Every structure is written in C-alpha cells, then in structure tokens.
C-alpha cells in the first residue's frame, strides 16, 4: 500500500513536474542560465587550481620526468570524449523514444564538445608520445580508437549539417550515435587485440590508484574541472540552439530582442 501512496504523494508529483519542466525548451533556457554561470565559474576555478598545481607544483615523476605532466590535460580530455559520446547516444535514445526535443538539442550541441575533447586527447597524446615513445604518432590501440572516435564525431556533425530539416538531422544523428555506441566496444576491443603499446589505464575503480597523493589530488581535480567545464559549455551551446530552433515562438523573439539581435 505504501507504494501507491508514494506515487500519489505531492513530493513525487512535484518531482515529476519539476522534471518535465526541464524538458521544455523555454524553461530550460531560463533555468540553465544561472546554473550554467555557476558551473562555469566553478569549473574555471577548479581548472586553474588543478592545472597550476599539476603543471607547476606536483612532484616530478621518476621514470618520465616532467613530460608526465601532460597527463593533467590528456586523461581528462580522453575521459570526456568517451563519456560525451555515451551521453549523446543516451540523449538520442531519449529523443527518439519519448520525442523530447530538448534531448536532441543537447545531443547536437554536445557533438562539437566531444569532438574537441577527442582532438585535444589526440594532440596531447602525440606531444606526450614524442618524449616517451620517441615518435609523434604510433599505431597503438588507444590512439587508433581515439582517432576512430573523432571520425564518429565528425560524421555526426556532418550528418546534422547535411539535412535540410534540422529535425531530420536530429533523428538521423541519433540513429547513427546508437549504431556507433554498439560498435564502440567492438572497435575498442578489436584495435586492442590488433596492437597495443599504450600504458594501461591509470585510474581503475577496482584498485587503489598507483599515483602519489600529491599527484593524485590535482589529477582528480583536473578531471572534475574538465567535466564541469564541459557541462557549462554544453548548457551555453544548447541555450543558443534553443534560441535558433525556437526563433518563431513569441518568448524566443522577446529574448532575441532583449539580447539586441535584429532577427
């Protein structure tokens, strides 16, 4: 009996209403503005602290010397590029199943962020590879799967832009993202099997991290900062996407007038 009373409780109803409000573009636009600003400033603060700490004050690594410091940028970017792809696929599924426009907007505007993270991971990986492996680029499993991931991102973006109706682009890209997410483990596994040179993952959930605490703290902070920055960036881009896609509605026109655009 407690169950039915829970589903009818005002708490649950308010929660559902609150959730539904977030899926409305107008509400999202208004609510995400202060939220995005807070997250953005917090991200900036954490990033500055962690990067200054990591790049200037963390101790030198025994084997790799100072060159290891790029880990503070490389690993967060690599983490994010994969997490964002998973988020895009999940948002695409939500959009396709429940027909929530906002999920599509967010998914679309996450694509350039994910692509830039994949690109950043590749570039920092190349810079790190030169002193460690003696070559800018090696055909190692992780590098290759990151390159493939970048191609997947570029494909998503190209598909969005190729469709005449943005709604078609949303749905087509969602299907492609879902197909890609099924394929990503296969790609990852197959390239790993094919060739691997990369050091194993630094952070694992199942083991204590093999890093000294003085490196680990700025490292974890950098990861947190990157995540927050990506969220703030995605909110910003999504707000602009909302304005563009909803430009025919009255509230969006008012908002554009307020911003001073001559649309």
């Amino acid at each position, binding site marked *: 009996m407690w169950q039915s009373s829970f589903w009818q409780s005002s708490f649950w109803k308010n929660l559902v209403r609150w959730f539904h409000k977030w899926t409305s573009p107008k509400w999202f636009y208004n609510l995400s503005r202060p939220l995005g600003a807070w997250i953005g400033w917090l991200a900036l603060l954490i990033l500055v602290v962690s990067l200054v700490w990591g790049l200037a004050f963390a101790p030198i690594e025994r084997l790799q010397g100072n060159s290891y410091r790029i880990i503070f940028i490389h690993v967060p970017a690599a983490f994010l590029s994969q997490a964002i792809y998973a988020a895009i696929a999940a948002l695409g599924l939500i959009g396709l199943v429940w027909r929530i426009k906002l999920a599509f907007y967010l998914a679309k505007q996450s694509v350039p962020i994910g692509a830039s993270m994949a690109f950043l991971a590749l570039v920092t990986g190349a810079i790190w590879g030169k002193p460690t492996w003696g070559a800018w680029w090696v055909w190692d499993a992780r590098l290759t799967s990151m390159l493939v991931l970048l191609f997947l991102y570029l494909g998503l973006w190209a598909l969005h832009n*190729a469709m005449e109706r943005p709604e078609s682009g949303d749905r087509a890209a969602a299907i492609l993202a879902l197909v890609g997410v099924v*394929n990503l483990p296969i790609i990852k596994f197959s*390239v790993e099997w094919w060739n691997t040179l990369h050091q194993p993952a630094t952070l694992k959930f199942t083991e204590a991290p093999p890093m000294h605490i003085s490196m680990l703290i700025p490292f974890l902070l950098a990861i947190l900062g990157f995540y927050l920055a990506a969220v703030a960036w995605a909110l910003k881009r999504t707000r602009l996407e909302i304005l563009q896609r909803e430009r025919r509605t009255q509230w969006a026109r008012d908002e554009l007038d307020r911003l001073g655009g001559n649309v």
Partner: protein
Amino acid sequence: MKLSRLFTRVLQRELQLAYRRRADLANPPLFFLIVVALFPLGVTPDLERLATMAAGVLWVAALLANLLSLDLLFRSDHEDGSLEQLLLASSPPTLIVLGKALAHWLVTGLPLTLMSPLLAMMLALSPAAMPLLMLSLALGTVTLSLVGGIGAALTVGLRQGGLLLTLLIMPLFVPVLIFGTAVVQAAGAGLPWSGQLALLAAMAVLALVSAPLATVAALRIAVEE
C-alpha cells in the same frame, strides 16, 4: 504474402534491376582490380615484400570497392518513390531491407570474393592463405553490405551523400578490416585462425539481426525529409 515469398520476390526484383544496369555492376570489381594494381606500382614490385602486405591491400581494396557501390543501394528507389511504397506496405520493411542488402552482397561482395584469388596471386599471397582470404571476404562483405546499408539509408535523401557516407561508415568498418586481415595473415603464417574467423562470423550475425532495424528507422527519416 508469406514472408519467405516476399523475401524471394525482393531478391528477384533487386537482381533483375542490377542485371538491367550491367555497367554499374562492373564498377566494384574494376575498382578492386585497379586499386590492387596500383600498389605494386606505388610501393614496390618486389614479390616478397608484396606478399607480406597482400592481405591488407586486398582487404582495403575490397572494402573501398564495396563502399563505392553502397551509395546506390536505396538511391533509385528513393528517387522514383518506390521506397515510400515499400515502407508503407503491410509487409515488414526489415525483411525488404534484408533482401536488398543480400542482393547487394550477391552483386558486390560475392564477385569481389570470387575475384580475390586472381589478385592474391598477383600479389604473391601464400597459397595456404587463399581459401581463408575467400572465406573471410565472403563473411566480411556480408557485414559491410548490412552495416553500409545503415549509412546508405541515412544519406539517401542528400545531394552529396557519397562523401558523407564514407565518413559515416568508415569507422564502423574498422573491426571487419582488422579481423579480416588477421584471418588471412594468421593462415599465411601457419598460425591458428579459427578464432578470428569466428569473430568475423559473429559480427556478420550481429549485423544480420540488428542492422536492418537501424536501416528502416533511417529510411523513415529519409522519406519524411
């Protein structure tokens, strides 16, 4: 209509259409031949060195040849409106898509497979690897036709679909390429190859059951566009 009969009808129609456009039919094998012939010219005429890279060259060339013909998979159906009819019909569209993909394999993957021993000989691939090359190409091109069908469906309504198609599905072809060449290389080196071949077959089966669903969903968007 019974499903098996529907399937054979679709297959018949597709093969007949392919036969009527014989010039298109010749393109993938010709492309395969030309790309393979360019490698000795560009890299080295030394047969020993060619033999070491033969598996990769043959697989990459076959993959590109396959890609070349994918763009046409749904194009004419979309242009003359029969695609809409196929999707509106009461018969399951996944079966129709499956029939089209199989027909595509019969006119592209199969000829490429049958041609491959000849080209493998020109690249001095070890004779022991020859049957495995054919088997891996036959299995791998099934996956390529099915997965490529998703990309073809996503880009069918677009004017510059060809280039976009390449960008969309090339990443998805990576595992097929890796295991396809791995089978041939292992067989050439006298190593066990059954594991790689089994993975290739597993990918074909996965594509067989899941790719038509995504293809149909993509075609519905193309029809609405």
